[in-house]
């Protein structure tokens, strides 16, 4: 080794000494500030720190049907979390845990890695533990440092009604969503929140209120005793009774089995919805977290779209039920005499055009008056007479009945639908790309650009059945009744419409004769529609109402791509009405 003389400079020695003194004195200064000057504050904070505040939970409110049958219940499960820093030997503890909770070690390690957030933050490693498993872990408490469990209720659905879209589901809130939620409900990331349907709409009522337990802990973090003086108890959420009749819902559901579509039944006098079916459907328990990725993808990719609540968010052309809008305009403005007849030859050629517009009955209906035009749904009658109405009058009347706007039923994500007006046509077809006469030929049949939801059809039929004064549709039994805006027309208009709808079902050639009730003298009023659409077979519609024991009920049946309204939707409506008036609950209630 080459020996080199050290020539360290006293200046360098002093420079390093200065750095040493400076850094250590600045540290000591900070310690002095914290420990002597700011002592009181930190000391009082440390006194509180040995008392832990534990959040306590209570069950979420149940959802019941109108007769008290439980539709959505809770069952207690536990989730298991570990705090990585407090684990003494992860491998040994996981091995013991895996034999108790019956999940293999590999899976536990996988979840631990997946959900690991930090050494001091609880990591969820298992869900849906039973009380027995928890008791077993509790017995061996000292062997599991760093392992905790929390109660977490899961929703359980009545087995026969586990696929009702309107019930909705719960979802875990994530960190990013929490700040956007109602502060007073005290959400924390990972907690469940109503995310769809009734669960979302009535979140505030259904959600429990959190409580706080103060406990003193020892050196192991074990509870020494509860300081019960300042505890805030947790309160369960309120139970919610729905207007739904569980039996009727089950029956309507079974009758739509294998079809796509929607059934709605309501009490016209109160706005209560007795049944709301959307088909195809899916088991709501897929949201409980045990669903595999494949099952999920199947649900999402299914072209029949089972996740969609067709009753409020499915958009369809309306079909000939909107002929009634034309009828109202015709009589209200005295444009035709209801007893005047037109000749239906099966073909209509608008003046100045060569296009042929055909009636659904190719050989024609012969002489047709207003009543027959409604009952047999004659197209030619309405092609001719709609020429007397202006587009604005027609769309205004349609909008008066609640089309083009949500019905405000108490469910989230309702669709508006569409009644195209002048602005719409100018915007979409250009100033000269359409003619008022031409579009009215489509509109009067409820075709063209018109889109409605089944629940809008329900509101429409309720307006007719109540002659203009009908309460808002609702699912919450205890919600106060409020009315839609009153629709005022002379009684004779309602009479003409009622007469026509009576004949639809009860006259010999009525298009909805298949809905006739054989076993009862209750008379059904109705209107069929066969809504043409570019996606295949026409949508089959039936809307109707009936009086039974001083109460008016209404029904909407829609079968997506089902075919003719008379052939497909009418018999379904008839069956459902027949079932309902004969069901014991209905009889007992009245």
């Amino acid at each position, binding site marked *: 080794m080459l020996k080199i*003389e050290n020539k360290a400079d006293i200046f360098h020695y002093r420079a390093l000494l200065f750095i040493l003194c400076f850094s250590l004195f600045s*540290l000591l200064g900070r310690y002095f500030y914290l420990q002597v000057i700011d*002592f009181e504050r930190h000391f009082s904070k440390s006194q509180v720190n040995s008392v832990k505040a534990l959040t306590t939970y209570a069950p979420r409110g149940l959802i019941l049907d109108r007769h008290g049958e439980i539709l959505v219940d809770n069952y207690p499960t536990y989730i298991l979390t570990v705090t990585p*820093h407090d684990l003494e030997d992860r491998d040994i503890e996981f091995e013991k845990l895996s034999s108790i909770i019956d999940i293999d070690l590999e899976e536990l390690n996988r979840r631990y890695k997946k959900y690991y957030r930090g050494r001091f933050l609880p990591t969820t490693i298992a869900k849906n533990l039973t009380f027995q498993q928890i008791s077993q872990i509790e017995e061996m408490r000292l062997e599991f440092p760093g392992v905790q469990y929390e109660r977490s209720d899961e929703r359980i659905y009545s087995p026969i009604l586990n696929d009702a879209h309107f019930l909705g589901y719960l979802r875990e809130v994530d960190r990013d969503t929490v700040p956007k939620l109602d502060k007073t409900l005290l959400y924390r990331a990972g907690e469940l929140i109503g995310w769809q349907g009734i669960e979302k709409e009535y979140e505030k009522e259904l959600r429990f209120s959190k409580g706080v337990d103060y406990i003193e*802990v020892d050196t192991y973090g074990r509870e020494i005793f509860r300081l019960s003086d300042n505890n805030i108890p947790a309160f369960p959420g309120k139970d919610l009774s729905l207007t739904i009749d569980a039996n009727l819902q089950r029956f309507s559901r079974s009758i739509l089995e294998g079809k796509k579509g929607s059934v709605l039944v309501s009490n016209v006098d109160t706005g209560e919805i007795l049944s709301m079916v959307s088909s195809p459907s899916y088991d709501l328990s897929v949201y409980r977290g045990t669903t595999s990725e494949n099952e999920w993808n199947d649900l999402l990719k299914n072209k029949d779209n089972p996740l969609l609540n067709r009753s409020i968010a499915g958009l369809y052309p309306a079909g000939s039920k909107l002929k009634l809008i034309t009828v109202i305009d015709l009589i209200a403005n005295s444009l035709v005499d209801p007893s005047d007849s037109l000749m239906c030859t099966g073909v209509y050629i608008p003046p100045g055009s060569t296009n042929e517009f055909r009636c659904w009955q190719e050989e024609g209906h012969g002489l047709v008056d207003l009543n027959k035009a409604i009952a047999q749904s004659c197209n030619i009658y309405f092609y001719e007479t709609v020429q007397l109405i202006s587009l604005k009058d027609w769309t205004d009347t349609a909008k008066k009945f609640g089309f083009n706007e949500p019905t405000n039923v108490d469910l989230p994500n309702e669709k508006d639908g569409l009644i195209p007006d002048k602005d719409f046509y100018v915007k979409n077809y250009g100033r000269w790309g359409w003619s008022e006469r031409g579009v009215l030929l489509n509109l009067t049949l409820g075709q063209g650009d018109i889109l409605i939801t089944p629940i809008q059809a329900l509101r429409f039929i309720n307006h007719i059945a109540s002659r203009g004064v009908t309460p808002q549709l609702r699912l919450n039994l205890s919600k106060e009744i409020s009315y839609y805006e009153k629709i005022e027309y002379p009684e004779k208009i309602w009479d003409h419409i009622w007469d026509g709808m009576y004949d639809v079902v009860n006259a010999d050639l009525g298009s909805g004769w298949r809905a006739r009730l054989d076993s009862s003298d209750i008379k059904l009023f109705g209107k069929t529609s066969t809504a043409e659409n570019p996606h295949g077979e026409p949508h089959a519609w039936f809307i109707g109402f009936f009086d039974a024991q001083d109460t008016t009920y209404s029904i909407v049946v829609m079968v997506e791509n089902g075919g003719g309204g008379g052939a497909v939707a009418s018999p379904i409506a008839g069956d459902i009405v027949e079932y309902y008036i004969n069901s014991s609950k209905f009889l007992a209630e009245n």
Partner: protein
Amino acid sequence: MFLDQFASGTTKDSVIRLFFIIAGLIFFSLVTLYSISDDPLSFNSSFYRQCIFLIFSSIVFFVVKNIPIKIIHDNSTLIFIGTLILCIIPFFLPRVEYTYRWIDLGFFYIQPSEYLKCATVVVVAKYLSNHQLEVKDNSIIIIPCLLTLLSASIVLNQPDLGTAVIIFAPLLPMLLWAGVSNFTIFLMIAPIITILAASNIIFFTVWAFIMFCFFLTFQASVVNKTILYFANIFTGLLTPFLWNNLADYQKQRILTFLNPDLDPMGSAYHIIQSITAIGSGGLFGKGWGAGSQTQLKFLPVQESDFILSVIAEEFGFFGISCVMLLCFLLIKTLLDIAFRSSDYFASLVIVGLASILLSHIFINSAMTIGLMPVKGLPIPFISAGGSFLLSCFIMIGLVINFSKN
């Protein structure tokens, strides 16, 4: 200067003093570990393990103490490369706690980057001592910088930001000690300050002006000075883009450090609990084994990263002052030995090791009182942990070994 008075006495006195100082620190360590162990005499307690590590480390210490300095000097490059390879091995092993820092020996985890710190100091010292005559030449700094950068970048990828910072710490003191010109030293510090100042336009402007004044006073060609000056300014302007390249957890730590109240149960949890523990200790502390924060386990990683907080809670400001005094004396004694050493290489190594120890002390304490982001760096001789204790003993072994001539 009165501080020079401590430098009086012989190197032999200093070595004896060193033994007493380290014994004092270890005493504090064991007393504290005994207090926080649930069952101090069981094999799994940190107290018991630390005792075993102490015995093992002492043996290694005596071995290192007696290796002839010539062997270390001549083989320093080999030692450096060997340690570097050890640091790369974990990348090919399964991860431990989500990082590539440790090699699992079954009974014991070894963290090779601990020894890379010493090896880098030794290899840099050897280079500087071999090129002592060119020390006034600016290009002398290139090789030491590259060596340090190489070590640091491997450690940074493990990832271990704390140790990477520590690897950089001895560079400037050693260059200063070696006699590199003040201008060169300034050129090395300037970019760091530039980057720190870049976050704020006012700081940056003031710093640009100060830097301009400095450049005026130094003697170098105008062209060189202009280029260097603007290189600094550009670095400052680029900093915001570099910031975006940091890992999320690194950004998170820095941001949490700037505003600890942001996320009280997340990353700032450590700092808040630590400050509460320290502050509640008061002048004389809550007494041995009576610290409520510590004993109730509100204080995290209390046996290593946050052991100073335990001392502060249980023994108060008085206890912390004793620890700080011991730390001061430790570094001071090392500097004394380095100053008096007749050998250039030995002197440089000792200054480098002293810098490592001081940065550990500073960063660890600053972290416990919220002056620095949480780095996970232990404090020498006090924190529990076998790998680190061993490396501290090796450092002191080298110092005593090198002080002999």
